[in-house]
């Protein structure tokens, strides 16, 4: 119980800012003790375009979260999304140095350093280096140390982003007097929640359809093999409806939420709905078929882009656990059906674990929950460092200091 910590998970999304406050108890369990939420401002497609507005919205959400938790956040884990994110795969290899052919720690470090050697393009910074597994003389091994072989190889998936855009998000958090402990890709965070370990080991594609962007993460053998961000999200569906049906965004959003569906059924063609439903001026009938057609087109586009980006990696045999949808837009009716049709892989809408509070169990909270979960695992690895400061931290906690 000596290493209790209060951590905060923050997602600065296009439609809303969500902050979860978690209490890491003894580096083993996590209690969600507070939550704050505010309407996002100054954020477009996951990127900050108005620093002041984004700061106000984020800080209001943090304040609300701290108030509901009755404590102050000690460290922050931040989700990262946006079209600026990109990734590439690299290999590193080294010959085993020992004469007896046993792999030493130095050999592993040398192989890993070799894989990470490549610098990101100018103006960009790495977000993650994700280890995709070692190969010793061509055979896959989890931990090659003290195994016998001649040549050690390792594959890494590197995620990088625009330095200024990443720095904007960090400085929004800094502006509240908090330091960012780590940044986690939104799709990876969602994957932690909606895909269990078995699914990740057997292979699964997690697609998080948010308001401004759609993030995906492809898992092979329990590792993140590919990630990506499509700059289209639920907000585009609303825009399309607004323009296509010539109605306001507000009404378009209502139509999407009430009647939205990702596929067009033959029976829907003749159905119509009233725009307002109160026969006031401007109220008119709108064909459901038109709504579905517009939504379907955009949803199909999203999945098509993902399919194109993943290319050969999107093989139903490689991802037997199928596709899992998460994010706010995954609540759209029959979206899994459309995904299955376009991607050619069985799709289901993901669910957050049962241990999660009911108020945050919806798929739209997957990524922020995932970040909080990531914070727990990060605390486990940093456990030894924390114990040194345990007494002071305990005192600070008693006095409710951050």
């Amino acid at each position, binding site marked *: 119980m000596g290493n209790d910590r209060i951590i905060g998970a923050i997602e600065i999304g296009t439609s809303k800012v969500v902050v979860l406050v978690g209490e890491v108890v003894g580096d083993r369990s996590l209690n969600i003790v507070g939550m704050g939420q505010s309407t996002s401002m100054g954020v477009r497609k996951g990127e900050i375009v108005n620093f002041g507005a984004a700061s106000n919205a984020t*800080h209001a959400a943090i*304040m609300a979260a701290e108030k509901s938790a009755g404590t102050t956040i000690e460290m922050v884990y931040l989700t990262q999304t946006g079209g600026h994110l990109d990734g590439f795969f690299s290999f590193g290899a080294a010959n085993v140095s020992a004469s007896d052919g046993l792999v030493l720690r130095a050999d592993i470090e040398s192989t890993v350093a070799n894989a990470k050697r490549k610098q990101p393009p100018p103006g960009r910074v*790495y977000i993650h280096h994700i280890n995709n597994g070692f190969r010793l003389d061509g055979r896959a091994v989890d931990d090659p140390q003290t195994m016998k072989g001649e040549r050690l190889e390792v594959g890494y998936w590197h995620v990088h982003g625009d*330095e200024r855009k990443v720095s904007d998000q960090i400085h929004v958090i800094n502006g*509240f007097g908090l330091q960012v402990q780590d940044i986690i890709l939104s799709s990876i965070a969602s994957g932690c929640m909606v895909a269990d370990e078995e699914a990740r080991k057997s292979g699964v594609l997690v697609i998080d359809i948010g308001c401004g962007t759609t993030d995906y993460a492809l898992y092979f053998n329990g590792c993140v093999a590919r990630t990506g961000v499509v700059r289209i999200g639920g907000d585009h569906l609303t825009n399309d409806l607004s323009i296509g049906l010539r109605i306001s965004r507000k009404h378009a959003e209502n139509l999407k939420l009430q009647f939205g569906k990702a596929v067009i059924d033959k029976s829907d063609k003749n159905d119509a709905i009233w725009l307002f439903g109160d026969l006031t001026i401007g109220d008119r009938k709108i064909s459901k078929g038109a709504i579905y057609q517009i939504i379907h087109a955009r949803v199909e586009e999203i999945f098509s882009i993902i399919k194109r980006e993943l290319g050969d990696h999107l093989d139903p045999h490689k991802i037997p656990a199928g596709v899992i949808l998460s994010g706010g837009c995954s609540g759209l009716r029959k979206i899994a059906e459309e995904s299955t049709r376009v991607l050619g892989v069985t799709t289901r809408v993901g669910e957050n674990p049962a241990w999660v509070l009911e108020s945050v169990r919806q798929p739209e909270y997957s990524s922020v929950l995932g970040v909080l979960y990531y914070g727990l695992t990060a605390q486990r690895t940093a456990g030894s460092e924390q114990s040194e400061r345990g007494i002071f931290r305990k005192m600070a906690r008693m006095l*409710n200091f951050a």
Partner: protein
Amino acid sequence: MKKGETSQSADSRDWRVIRQSPAGKAVTDAARRRRRHFFLKLAGVSSLFVGLLGVGTYAFLFVFGESEIWSMKAPGEPLRSVNFSSNGVLDNVWFQETVELPLQVPLMGIDLFALKGQLEKFGQVKEASISRAFPDALNVEIDEREPLFRIRIRAQGGALSDLLVARDGTLFEGDRFSRKARAGMPYLGGVRVVQTEEDFLPLPEFDQIASLLLEARQRIPGVARGWQVFHLQDGSSAPAVYPNTLRVRGGYVFETVFKLDSLAVQFDRLIEIIHYLQKQGVPSVKKIDLSLTGGVAVQTGSSLPSLRLLN
């Protein structure tokens, strides 16, 4: 570095190269409010901590500590010298014997007012001014009373002793006055000396007698030098309870009698008479009585009528 792990590399450009702003920088009202709240809480907790620490320390000392007297130490170095000066006969030795300042007393530890009072208790000292001369000296300036007369009194044990009388009637023993200096002062008789526990009270209304002597020393120094006794008495031969007559004996005029009412007029007349007599070649005069109403009686030797009454 295990499979599936995410990590950062020290060699590559990680997001951690982005410099995070200091924790104290607040950009929104919410952040400022939180920061203010934090500092208020910090100040409160710090005060509480300091208070508890103080109470704890006090309690510890109270229980385990030995009582210790804390005293203020006067600044400045110990007294090493006294710069003594006087307009009279008193000197540094007299000062040391009289005052007895302890050695190595801190300069700032000397009570100047007490010392001044101690010095001025001596009748011979009219006024004493004392000041510190940093770092280690004391300046003492004495204004002494000038004695004009001497007076012989009988102490309680019956022994006779001489006191000196200053112009203002103050009586004092007259330390450091030589025998010769004392011999030059006329005796004063016929006055009542009142002694208190420590001292003698000054003689009342003594100024006119002192002025007479001082003026005589200026205007008829030859005559005044010979004056040996000033005796006060009333008209009868009984001891002077309320004296109204002054008899001055000695010198050119053996006895001069003044009435105390108008000494200045009588003195002027005396000077005229003496000049006249000296001009006449009278070698000595037995008596000049200036106390008579309407004239002066002069009693001379054989060459002149023995008693003349001058108007």
